C-alpha cells in the first residue's frame, strides 16, 4: 500500500486463521484466497448469486456485542466471543465482514456436503464413461470428496430428455443437469439473450429453451464452459476427445482487436478445442463462439505447406534468395497484415529498411460490426501492433486503391505480401499480374496463385508471440502445436528473409530476441522484456496514437471515450 492510501482490507478468520480481504468479498472467493476450497456449483464469480445448489454451506459467526451496552463480548481469556449462526449458511450469498469467522472443515459442514451430494446424485445417470465432462466435472470431483460411494436410492430414477438440441452449437442432456441455473443467468446477464429456463417442478424440473427459441447467439458456447456438469456439451467437441488427454496452451483469440484470452486444447499436434481463459481486464471468463472455430484453419485444405517459385517446389533458401533479388534494387511495396504478431510486423518493418526504407507500406483493414461485448469493429487482432512497431503510421483501409493506383501507374515492380489476399482488398488479379509478388502466408488464395515466390508461414497456434489489443494491452500467446512438416519454425521465415536481404545483424528467430531488438526501436517497449509480460498482458502507453480515429465502439472492459481521455490527460 502506498502512503496516503490506507489499507481498507478487513480481517476475517478462515478455520481460525486470519486473512485480510477487501470488504464485501464473496466468502467463496475469500476462502479461496486462504488456499481452501468451498465446493460450489451455482456460484460463478461473473454472474449474479442465486444460492440454489446449497453445496457451499459453511458455518459462520461474528464477534458478539452486548445488546444493552454495545460493548464487544469477550471470552474469559479476553478474546472476542464469537456468536456462531446456529445453522450453516451458504458462503456464496455471504460477503466478508470485519471479524467474521468461518468454519469450512467442521463435521457439520462435511455432513452438509455429503447430504447435498447424495441428493444431487439421486437422479443422476451413471453416464461418466460416455459423458464429455468427465475429467473436468465438478460433480465427479465432489462426489469423490463427499460422495457415499454407493446409492441408497432403490426407487426408479427420473427419466428426462437426453440429446436435446438447444441450438446449432449446444446439446443438452437433461438427466445430467443439476439445476444450478448458471446457463440461464449467463444468457440473461451476459449474452442478453434470455432463451433458457426451467419448466416443471421438484425433481421433474427440466432445463429447456423457451418455445420457438433456440440458443443460437454468438456466446452460446460459454454456457458449455460454465456448466459444472456434462449437461451442456459442444456439438463440435462432443465425443471427439477426452479432456484429460488435452494439452492446454495459453493463446489469444485472433478474430478481433478485443484479444480474448484463450486456452487451446491439443493432443499430439492436433487441436480439439478452444476455451476462454479468465482475464478480468479483458474478457472476464467469456469468449465468442466464432473464435472457437478458428483452429480449423490449421488443417484447412488450402493450407500452404511448401516453399515454391512460380508454383514449382523449391528449398527455403532458394525462395529467400529469389525474394531478396526481387525486392532489392526494384521499386518494392509492402503489404503487411493486422493478423501478424508484433514480432512479425517489426521484422517486416526491418525488411522495409533493408530494401531501402521508403517502400510504401500498407495494411489491410478489416472491419465488421462490433457487438458491444467481446467482438469489436476492428477485426484485425493486431492493428495497434503495426502502429507501435512502426510498420505503418495510419489506420489501415479496407480498400487498397492507393496501392492499385501505384501498380496501375507502373510505380511498383515488386510486392511483398504478408498473409493477405489483395484481390479481396481492391486490387484486381490483372493488376497483380503486372508486378512480381513475394507471398508469405498460411493459406493459398488468389494472391498466392499469381505470386512468384510463395513462403509458407505459421498460424497463431503454431508459433508464440504477442498481439496488442484495443486497450493497447500487449498479450502473449504460446505455441500449441508444431507447424506443418517442412515449414521453418518460429520466426525463422522472417529472420532468414531479413538476413538474405542483407540486414547487418542476425536476429535469432524467437520472440524474446526480437523484443530485445525492439526495445531500441519502439519507445513504448523500451523497458519491456518478452519474458516479463504477464499472463494477463500489460498495457503500454498509447499517447503517440491518441489522434487516430480507431473504429472500436464500447465493449466489455473497453470504452473508447475513456481511453481517449486518459490518453489525452
Amino acid at each position, binding site marked *: 500500500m502506498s502512503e496516503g492510501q490506507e489499507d481498507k482490507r478487513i480481517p476475517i478468520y478462515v478455520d481460525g486463521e486470519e486473512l485480510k480481504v477487501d470488504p464485501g468479498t464473496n466468502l467463496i472467493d475469500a476462502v479461496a484466497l486462504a488456499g481452501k476450497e468451498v465446493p460450489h456449483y451455482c456460484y460463478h464469480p461473473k454472474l449474479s448469486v442465486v444460492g440454489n445448489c446449497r453445496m457451499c454451506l459453511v458455518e459462520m459467526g461474528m464477534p458478539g456485542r452486548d445488546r444493552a451496552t454495545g460493548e464487544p463480548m469477550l471470552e474469559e481469556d479476553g478474546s472476542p466471543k464469537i456468536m456462531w449462526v446456529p445453522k450453516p449458511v451458504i458462503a456464496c450469498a455471504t460477503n466478508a465482514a470485519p471479524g467474521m469467522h468461518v468454519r469450512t472443515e467442521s463435521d457439520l459442514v462435511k455432513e452438509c456436503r455429503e447430504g447435498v451430494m447424495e441428493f444431487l446424485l439421486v437422479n443422476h*445417470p*451413471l453416464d*461418466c*464413461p*460416455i459423458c464429455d465432462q*468427465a475429467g473436468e466435472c465438478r460433480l465427479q470431483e465432489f462426489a469423490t470428496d463427499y460422495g457415499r460411494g454407493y446409492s441408497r436410492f432403490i426407487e*426408479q*430414477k*427420473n*427419466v428426462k430428455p*437426453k*440429446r436435446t438440441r438447444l441450438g446449432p452449437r449446444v446439446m443438452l442432456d437433461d438427466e445430467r443437469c443439476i439445476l444450478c441455473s448458471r446457463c440461464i443467468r449467463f444468457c440473461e446477464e451476459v449474452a442478453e439473450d434470455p432463451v433458457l429456463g426451467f419448466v416443471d417442478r421438484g425433481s*421433474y424440473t427440466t432445463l429447456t429453451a423457451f418455445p420457438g427459441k433456440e440458443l443460437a447467439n454468438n456466446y452460446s458456447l460459454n454456457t458449455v464452459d460454465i456448466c459444472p456438469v456434462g449437461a451442456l456439451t459442444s456439438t463440435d467437441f*462432443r*465425443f*471427439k*476427445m*477426452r479432456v*484429460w*488427454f488435452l494439452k492446454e496452451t495459453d493463446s489469444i483469440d485472433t478474430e478481433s482487436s478485443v484479444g480474448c484470452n484463450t486456452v487451446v486444447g491439443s493432443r499430439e499436434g492436433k487441436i480439439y478445442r478452444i476455451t476462454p481463459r479468465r482475464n478480468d481486464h479483458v474478457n472476464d471468463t467469456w469468449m465468442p463462439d466464432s473464435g472457437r472455430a478458428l483452429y480449423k484453419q490449421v488443417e484447412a485444405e488450402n493450407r500452404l505447406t511448401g516453399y515454391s517459385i512460380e508454383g514449382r517446389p523449391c528449398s527455403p533458401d532458394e525462395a529467400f534468395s529469389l525474394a531478396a533479388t526481387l525486392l532489392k534494387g526494384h521499386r518494392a511495396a509492402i503489404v503487411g497484415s493486422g493478423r501478424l504478431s508484433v514480432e512479425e510486423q517489426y521484422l517486416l518493418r526491418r525488411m522495409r529498411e533493408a530494401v531501402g526504407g521508403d517502400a510504401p507500406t500498407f495494411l489491410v483493414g478489416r472491419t465488421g460490426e462490433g457487438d458491444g461485448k467481446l467482438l469489436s469493429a476492428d477485426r484485425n487482432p493486431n492493428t495497434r501492433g503495426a502502429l507501435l512497431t512502426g510498420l505503418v503510421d495510419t489506420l489501415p483501409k479496407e480498400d487498397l486503391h492507393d496501392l492499385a493506383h501505384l501498380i496501375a501507374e507502373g510505380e511498383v515492380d515488386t510486392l511483398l505480401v504478408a498473409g493477405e489476399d489483395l484481390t479481396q482488398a481492391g486490387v484486381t488479379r490483372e493488376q497483380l499480374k503486372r508486378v512480381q509478388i513475394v507471398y508469405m502466408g498460411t493459406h493459398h488464395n488468389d494472391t498466392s496463385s499469381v505470386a512468384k515466390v510463395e513462403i509458407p508461414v505459421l498460424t497463431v497456434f503454431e508459433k508464440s508471440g504477442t498481439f496488442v489489443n484495443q486497450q493497447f494491452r500487449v498479450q502473449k500467446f504460446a505455441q500449441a502445436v508444431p507447424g506443418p512438416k517442412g515449414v521453418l519454425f518460429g520466426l525463422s521465415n522472417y529472420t532468414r528473409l531479413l538476413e538474405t536481404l542483407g540486414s547487418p545483424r542476425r536476429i535469432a528467430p524467437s520472440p524474446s530476441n526480437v523484443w530485445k531488438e525492439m526495445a531500441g526501436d519502439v519507445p513504448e517497449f523500451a523497458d519491456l522484456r518478452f519474458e516479463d509480460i504477464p499472463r494477463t498482458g500489460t498495457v503500454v502507453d498509447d499517447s503517440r496514437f491518441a489522434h487516430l480515429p480507431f473504429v472500436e465502439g464500447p465493449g466489455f472492459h473497453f470504452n473508447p471515450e475513456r481511453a481517449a481521455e486518459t490518453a489525452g490527460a
Partner: protein
Amino acid sequence: MATKVVERKPLSLAERTFLPQIVSGLRVTMKNMFKAPVTLEYPDERPDIPPGYRGVPTLVKDPNGREKCVSCQLCEFVCPPKAIRITPAEIPEDAETAHVEKAPEEFEINMLRCIYCGLCQEVCPEEAIFLQDIFSVTGTSREELVFKKDKLYALGGTLPDSHFKWDKKKADELAGNPHH
C-alpha cells in the same frame, strides 16, 4: 591385481575311474524314461489355461450382441506402454443402441507394445475389455500386430454379463416417470 590360487583336492581312486558318476547319471535317465512326460506336443497339444490368466487383451460383446465398449478412453489413459489407441464416435440416432450414445469408431491395440499388465481390464467401467486365454501372438509385419477393432472383437467373443446396465436404462426410458 593380486591373484589368489585356489587349492584343489586331489581326486580319489573311484572318482578317477568316473564309474560312479556314469551309473548315477544313467539312473536318472532310466527313472525318467518310465515317468509320464511333463512337456506338451505343442502346437498339437495345448495347455489348460488357468482362470485369471492374462493373455491377449480382447474386446467382448454382451449376450445380446451389443458391443460393450463405449470408448471412454480410460484404458487408453491407463495403459502404461501406450499400446491402446481409440477413435471415439457417436452412435447414430437411428441405431438400436442409440441410447448408449458413444462407441469406438476404431480401437487399436499395438501388441508389440502391450505388456499384458491387465490394467485396461481393471480400469474398464463397462467390463468391455478382457485379457483372455490367447497367449500366442505371431505375425509377419508390424502392421499385422496392431490389432484392430474387428480382430479384437473376433478374439473376444461374448462373455456373460451380470448387469445389463444399458438394457435397464432403455427399459426405464420406455417406462417414463412414475408420476408423470
